[in-house]
């Protein structure tokens, strides 16, 4: 049996890769996909913790995270499409209207 700490290490690495992706990429779609990566890393950690405690609470939590992620992706992609229609460009560097 693989110890849960292996899963946690993998989850930590995935989360770090996701955060790096959010910072380095310029395309909002890829940034969004990196966020999904980080979310999945957190899900993996939750399932590993649930496995360790022998209860299904971790799995139930992951179920809710999935549902919220689905809603989040739909709304986020709609916002990106609206931004693209208004500006005809798709780079996060252009979106500095509210920056001081």
């Amino acid at each position: 049996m693989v110890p849960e700490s292996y899963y946690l290490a993998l989850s930590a690495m995935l989360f770090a890769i996701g955060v790096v992706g959010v910072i380095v990429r310029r395309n909002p779609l890829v940034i969004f996909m990196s966020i999904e990566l980080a979310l999945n890393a957190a899900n993996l950690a939750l399932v590993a913790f649930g496995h360790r405690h022998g209860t299904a609470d971790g799995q139930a939590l992951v179920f809710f995270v999935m549902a919220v992620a689905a809603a989040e992706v739909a709304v986020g992609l709609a916002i990106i499409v609206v931004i693209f229609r208004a500006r005809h460009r798709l780079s996060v560097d252009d979106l500095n209207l509210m920056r001081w």
Partner: protein
Amino acid sequence: MGTAAFGLIALVILGSALGLVLKRNPIHGALFLVVNLGGIAALYLTLGAEFLAAAQVIVYAGAIMVLFVFAIMILIPGKEETGPDPRRGYRLVAIPVGVALLAELGLIAARRVGTASGPGGPAGVEAMGRLLFTDYLLPFELTSVLLLAAMVGVMLLSRRRT
């Protein structure tokens, strides 16, 4: 045997995650993410979470990634990241940030979790279903309201102004 399988899946997952971050073409990134999500579904299976593995493949690798590929096709991106980066200095900060985050997470995991194992054992589909419809009944019902609100919001957002 179990450790070898875990190592293989972990390699696939890490490689596809790096591919997502490093590849310039977003459609390649999306396909890498599909591989990544499939690998995580396989890990859910090794942890005894069969329902989540199925849901991961159906909801994430299926529905959400189809949505992503659709958006990428509609927006025809790929030109945004070809030129020289005007903010290269800022973006290189990502490397120390990533390393520091990884060190921090590793430290927390090593100090708080360690390698000792608890009671352990998988909780099957039955236990999860029982939990969802008893203790988590209210959040479960609220999820449907959330999905409905997201659906209406998306239709409102993506409607063309006349």
